[in-house]
């Protein structure tokens, strides 16, 4: 029989404190971002700050309600919640009107619209947590791995269909949890390589260098470097790695001399030749040592080269508008609303804040509406401009504290269910923070996802509140046995 505990006594008060502070700062930032001299009251319900206050009040009620639910309910109904939200996503896609190119909003009344994609995150996290909690569940088994990936891919796919690519990318954050649960680092490494190859290959495919597309040349060089790295660290064959490095250096020097002498070098073929020679050399090594890790390195290299050329081919076969979207994302093309301009304006606004900032409500760049989406995706700008470096650091610090606190909570969970859910929550928060602030300060591509608790919008605030408070509820019952 379960031993119930007093929820209020065992709940993590530090997290609640951080949550309340962040939500409060978010609210006054929204007020500052949409502030105009014509309107003065932060409580005016016709304005966004007033509306956000309503959303905040409702989130507190929501949070309290979650606290009253028995924590076992989340586990028992996890799959049902997941299925319900997937159906809701499908339903949204079917009935939603197109708003600015996306079909992700459910219209409740004229002024109230919800974005189910924001709520699907916690449902997915619960479902995955329940799967991990299953009796004798071993994540390292490939079948289980693919089951979990399937659970993540389904909402991603549905959200991409709603034309909300940014929100869909958030689901990549489940990788953190998978890594914690023992996913081999190779998958992470392979994923990063694949993204890197794709981005570089596409981005520089139009620039020619030595008679070959620059992108493909760069990627081939990286593939060679990765190969040496794999032989050195993974196959642990120092000698072969050294030989390969020497070979590459010689090849590079010879090529450089040839170029300096004004001889045309067919770079693509040279690089492909070098890769092929390396592979032949490694095959020979394999037949001498029978080290299966060498074989893995060979396979990885071949797959990489095939991937590089196939993604260029696939890319050129895409529909023009899909291609444009990827090109804009990679900064190859400025879209009509000129994302490059936005980021530049956002940097100007932040840069003008200085160390101490211009003071609350005294920001000029954001008020002048130079920065687009200043109370949603680009809200960090307002903080940077009005509160300066220390304010921006404070917000970053609060988020870091929240994320690290979630990690502490995660590690003290007695059961996989709580731990996996906590790491999923951590991943989601971190991903939002990473992308949103990175985008505003010009370090990440512009992907429209909100800054938790700060960006205006009821759906996102509610989504994050539910996400966090389910975790707190599960954590509050960690000492119960059942």
């Amino acid at each position, binding site marked *: 029989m379960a031993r119930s505990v007093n929820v209020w006594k065992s709940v993590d008060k530090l997290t609640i404190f951080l949550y309340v502070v962040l939500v409060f700062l978010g609210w006054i930032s929204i007020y500052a971002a949409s502030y*105009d*001299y*014509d309107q003065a009251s932060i409580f005016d319900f*016709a304005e966004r700050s007033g509306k956000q206050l309503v959303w905040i009040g409702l989130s507190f009620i929501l949070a309290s309600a979650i606290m009253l639910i028995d924590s076992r309910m989340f586990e028992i109904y996890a799959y049902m919640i997941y299925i319900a939200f997937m159906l809701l996503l499908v339903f949204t896609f079917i009935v939603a009107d*197109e*708003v*600015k*190119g996306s079909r992700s909003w459910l219209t409740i009344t004229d002024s109230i619209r919800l974005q189910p994609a924001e709520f699907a995150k916690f449902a997915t996290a619960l479902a995955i947590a329940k799967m991990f909690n299953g009796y004798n569940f071993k994540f390292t088994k490939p079948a289980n791995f693919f089951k979990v990936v399937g659970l993540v891919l389904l909402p991603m796919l549905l959200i991409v269909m709603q034309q909300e690519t940014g929100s869909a990318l958030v689901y990549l954050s489940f990788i*953190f949890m998978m*890594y*914690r649960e023992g996913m081999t680092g190779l998958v992470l490494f392979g994923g990063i390589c694949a993204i890197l190859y794709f981005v570089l290959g596409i981005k520089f495919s139009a620039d020619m260098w030595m008679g070959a597309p620059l992108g493909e040349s760069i990627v081939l060089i990286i593939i060679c470097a990765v190969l040496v790295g794999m032989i050195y660290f993974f196959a642990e064959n120092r000698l072969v790695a050294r030989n390969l490095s020497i070979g590459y250096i010689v090849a590079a020097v010879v090529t450089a001399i040839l170029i300096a002498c004004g001889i045309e070098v067919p770079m693509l073929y040279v690089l492909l030749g070098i890769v092929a020679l390396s592979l032949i050399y490694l095959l020979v090594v394999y037949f001498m040592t029978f080290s299966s890790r060498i074989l893995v390195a060979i396979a990885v290299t071949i797959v990489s080269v095939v991937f590089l050329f196939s993604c260029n081919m696939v890319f050129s076969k895409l529909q023009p508008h899909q291609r444009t979207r990827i090109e804009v994302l990679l900064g190859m093309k*400025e879209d*009509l*609303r*000129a994302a*490059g*301009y936005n980021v*530049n304006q956002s*940097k*100007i*606004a*932040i*840069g*003008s*804040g*200085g*160390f101490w900032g211009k003071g609350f409500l005294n920001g*000029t*760049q954001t*008020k*002048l*509406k*130079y920065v687009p989406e200043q109370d949603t995706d680009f809200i960090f700008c307002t903080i*940077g401009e009005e509160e*300066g*470096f220390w304010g*921006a*650091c404070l917000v*970053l610090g609060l*988020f*870091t504290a929240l*994320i*690290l606190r979630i*990690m502490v909570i995660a590690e003290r969970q007695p059961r996989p269910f709580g731990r996996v859910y906590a*790491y999923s929550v*951590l991943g989601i928060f*971190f991903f939002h*923070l*990473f992308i949103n*602030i*990175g985008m505003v*300060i010009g*370090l990440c591509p512009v992907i429209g996802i909100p800054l938790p608790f700060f960006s205006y919008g009821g759906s996102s605030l509610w989504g994050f509140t539910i996400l966090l408070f389910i975790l707190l509820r599960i954590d509050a019952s960690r000492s119960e046995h059942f």
Partner: protein
Amino acid sequence: MIAGAVLAVVAIYIVRLFMLQVGDNDYKRYADSNAFQRKILYPSRGFIYDRNGELMVYNQPAYDVMMIPREVRGLDTLDFCNTLGITIEQFEKYISDMKDRRKNPGYSTYTPQVFMTQLSAQDYGRLQEKLYKYPGFYTQNRVLRQYSRPIAANVLGNIREVSPSDIEKDDYYRRGDYTGDLGVEKSFEEVLRGVKGEEILLRDAHGRIKGKYEDGRYDVQPVSGRNITLSIDADLQAYGEKLMRGKTGAIVAIEPATGEILALVSSPTYDPSVLVGRERGKNYAKLTRDPANPLFDRAIMAMYPPGSTFKPTQGLIFLEEGIITPETNYPCTGGFVVGGLRVGCHAHPSPLPLIPSLATSCNAYYCYGLRSMLDNRRQYESTSEAFEIWKNHLVSMGYGYRLGVDLPGEKRGFLPNSKYYDKFYGENRWRALTIISIAIGQGEILATPLQIANLAATIANRGYFYTPHVVKSIQDSIIDTTYTERRYPSIDSRYYDYIVEGMRAAVTGGTCKTANLPDIEVCGKTGTAQNPHGRDHSAFMGFAPMDNPRIAIAVYVENAGFGATYGVPIGSLMMEYYLKGEITDPARKDLEHRMFNSKVVGNSGKKR
């Protein structure tokens, strides 16, 4: 490891923030509240030409008065109103409209707002001289439409200011922008509008322009809208509109070999130039209130009973299904009389085979044919099954669904299916005789003039058609392949020759003798559609010349009596005018004169 990743990212971000905010860089220099002015550069809207290259729609300059509310100082309101030629009340209304966030979601006192649109060149001149006295105001060049001829309003459409819902739907629009309304202006909005540009100007503390921000690196040049060439022949269109004056109805002329619409006349119509400029709102309201409804494009939106113009489809279906051969005779005893049921007909020889039945437009022939088909229990299991086959043939000929013309608002007409009758009469409670009037294009059947003209084009082509369209080509682009692919109805092409022969016989010695021309082999079919709301509608469908047809046509005149009274003369004049360029024969000249000046005043029995 994960904690490390989090801390590393945060550390990188803090360094970056430090560089941006505390380190020395260009970003601070620009951060003056007056540093930037973003000015929108409007593209020129694409021109519209007719099929012979005649310019039909082009642009005229207009001016918007813009206002940056926060920079307005010491405005002499009375003087300002006098300059603009507006009253103080209007001034206040403009201001309150501008501040209304429901009408203008992008309102801010810091950014340029549209104060007033479409200033005339005169007022613009006066304002420009005194502009220095009104800080915070400036003008912006815009384009309005100008029409070279007062024709084809239903095809061309017009432009209007965007509504808040347009802005909501498409990010491209800002308050005060224009968008296409009706016609090709609407359906080809994205081609015609081009892409707005923007320049970012740097200003000093006094608001004076100091040049371009970063030498125009972030400027976007506007891209002019692309020109469109219509398939409409402006002369033929004008001629058709003249013929239809005083009458209610529509003419659709199609070039069979391409599906290009040569003329799309809807009557009554209006001069498209009344919907340009400041008077647009008033004129638009007037057109909306007009009981004759000139904004309603009867050529593609009106759904009429096709009447006898429907008979060729029946002949084709009966031939295809093997119900009749061209030699099959059916009697006509002054009509189709079975039991207590009687569908009347007029005097002609009896019995008669297919070709003369088309020439004389015998009702009985098609009633017998439909009954033979629907009651044929050897070939079809039930009336429903036979009926569905009958219906599917018609659908393949373009009836019952939208053809897909490249204009907004096309209607689909109406074809009942067996479920419709099951519901109406009860399952298995209906048979051929219950619904016999559909054989002669009466009863539930409704079609748009476009669908009737498309049938004429299909017969002219002996068995295929192209989706009718009004846009022949787009500058630097090609038209959608749906308009360049042949569509084949489910009727074998060899059967069409009999129908063509019948339609030829109708002209040489049948119901459309008025269309008989000495030098052009015209084929035609009249239609006199009964309508429960008033006098019969007069219809005609035809094409010419018989071999290698260049024009297929449908004419529909509401409440004008027999097909031969109005439909045939108008249709034949249109074809003759198009093929020869003018009407010369004195007798035909008389006919033309009569058509120009006749009026059909009847109660409007149109179905919508």
